[in-house]
């Protein structure tokens, strides 16, 4: 089963989720992720699963909350404005320690924004998906193959750490087709003794809940959750390094913009500029170890994003003042070109030589 097939990113997300054992999908139409829902609508019935178009994004995430509470692998998908609506439910899932997968095929914002690809929900995904002290694991694929691989992984991570996991994609990755090798369907799943399935008179009642009126008890749950986050930070950071070893300028980019950055890095190398690329794959936990290590060797960093500068904050935290960290980005749904990204690398290279004074 290693045959390559041609699939749209949105469809690959759906197929891989099904192969990961997801049998409950709750969604609401929004561009540019609609193919995902349409694919699920066609496939879920045949897999004995449930596809349900909810009355709103809010209802959809709460249906995920219910199905996940029952111990099932469940998922919802949307695009930026819809994810804002899901923020409440995501916070409740985090508070109730429920696993589940949320897909964000990002588009430009704020507000209704536009429908072209964007990465402007980085802050929302890594900082403030909803109220309260919590994090999601956030995975950022950059190819259709990675859409497949990481949604498959997302369900395992969600179950292992009892946390919602977000796939942060964008309209470009969702809409494009590339060859993919699909994973073998998963057949074995972890036990979930905490799930509400009816106690059958054999145990005391399970409760899925995020309410703790005693401050001490609530603090305990927060501390326990952050201990789990510490384990995630220690073991799950993931990044790809490309030509970083001898790089003077390390470009940092994720998802769609990393593809453009890679082209620009190659062109910079052709021009004799020692550029490299670090591509964070987990946005939370942010791969600070890799960035921090690179800061020992590199002369400067350039963060390239499809927004006004969000991940650059995390790069600066990881570099911690040791080297300059610059930013280049396009917003509004515009994909930066390799040429303008190269120009940003060249400007930074010149400034390092003192030529830009």
């Amino acid at each position, binding site marked *: 089963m290693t045959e390559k*097939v041609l699939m749209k990113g949105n469809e690959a997300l759906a197929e891989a989720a099904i192969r990961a054992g997801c049998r409950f999908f709750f969604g609401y139409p929004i561009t*540019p992720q609609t193919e995902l829902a349409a694919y699920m609508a066609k496939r879920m019935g045949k897999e004995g699963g449930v596809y349900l178009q909810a009355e709103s994004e809010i209802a959809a995430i709460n249906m995920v909350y219910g199905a996940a509470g029952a111990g099932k692998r469940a998922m919802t998908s949307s695009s930026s404005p819809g994810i804002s609506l899901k923020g409440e439910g995501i916070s409740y899932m985090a508070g109730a320690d429920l696993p589940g997968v949320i897909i964000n095929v990002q588009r430009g914002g704020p507000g209704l924004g536009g429908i072209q690809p964007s990465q402007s929900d980085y802050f929302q995904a890594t900082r403030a998906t909803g109220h309260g002290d919590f994090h999601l694991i956030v995975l950022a694929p950059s190819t259709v193959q990675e859409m497949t691989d990481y949604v498959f992984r997302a369900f395992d991570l969600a179950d292992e750490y009892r946390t919602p996991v977000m796939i942060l994609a964008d309209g470009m990755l969702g*809409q*494009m087709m*590339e*060859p993919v090798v699909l994973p073998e369907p998963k057949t074995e799943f972890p036990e979930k003794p905490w799930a509400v399935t009816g106690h059958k008179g054999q145990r005391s009642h399970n409760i899925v809940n995020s309410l703790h009126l005693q401050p001490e008890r609530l603090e305990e749950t927060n501390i326990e959750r952050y201990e789990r986050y510490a384990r995630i930070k220690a073991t799950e950071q993931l990044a790809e390094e490309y030509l970083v070893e001898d790089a003077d300028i390390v470009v940092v980019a994720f998802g769609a913009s990393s*593809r453009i950055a890679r082209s620009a890095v190659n062109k910079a190398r052709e021009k004799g500029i020692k550029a490299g690329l670090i591509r964070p794959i987990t946005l939370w936990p942010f791969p600070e170890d890799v960035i921090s290590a690179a800061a020992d060797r590199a002369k400067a960093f350039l963060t390239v994003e499809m927004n006004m500068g969000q991940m650059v904050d995390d790069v600066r935290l990881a570099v911690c003042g040791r080297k300059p960290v610059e930013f280049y980005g396009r917003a509004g749904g515009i*994909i930066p070109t390799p040429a303008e990204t190269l120009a940003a690398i060249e400007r930074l290279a010149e400034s390092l030589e003192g030529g830009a004074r």
Partner: protein
Amino acid sequence: MIMAQPLNILLAGFGGQGILFAGKLIAYAGLIEGRELSWLPSYGPEMRGGTANCSVCLSDEPIGSPLVLEPDVLVAMNQPSLDKFADSVVPGGKIIVDSTMCARLPERDDVTIFPVPSTQLAEDAGLKGLASVVLVGKMLREIGFCDPVALDQAIVKSVPAKKAHLLGKNRKAFEIGMLNEDGDSSPVCSLPDGWVAE
């Protein structure tokens, strides 16, 4: 001779002209030949009857940006698309034009232009709606980006099972493009021996 260089293709026209489908044929041919490729459509409300375009990249290396801004090959199926994108074609590039739909050709002498009345040719042959496939045939003849057999397999893969009766028509449209001599210099690709369209 099959070229192995990376090839960035931009196809553009009105929604409904088969732009995305033509791009898909090229992408599938790449898949069948085991190459790296990407296919990226424009999307959104302008797709409902407005302009449609589609970027296809073929390469032997992983594809960086899938968005084709400086195409090696432009396939233009209407005047606005031709006017909009003709200047972005790289020097030495190729422009394949549906000349039924485009009266004015670009004034560039550093690119090769192949005007093919594909809409007319398709209609004359009873293949209404398959002009884009004619242009893919023409593109293959002039650029030879894949083995014609791979492209035929791509047609088989791209025509959905419930529309199997359209398979022969697609092959016929492809053949018309492959045999077209308009603007022809020295074709780099031809139909395989013993080819039968229907």
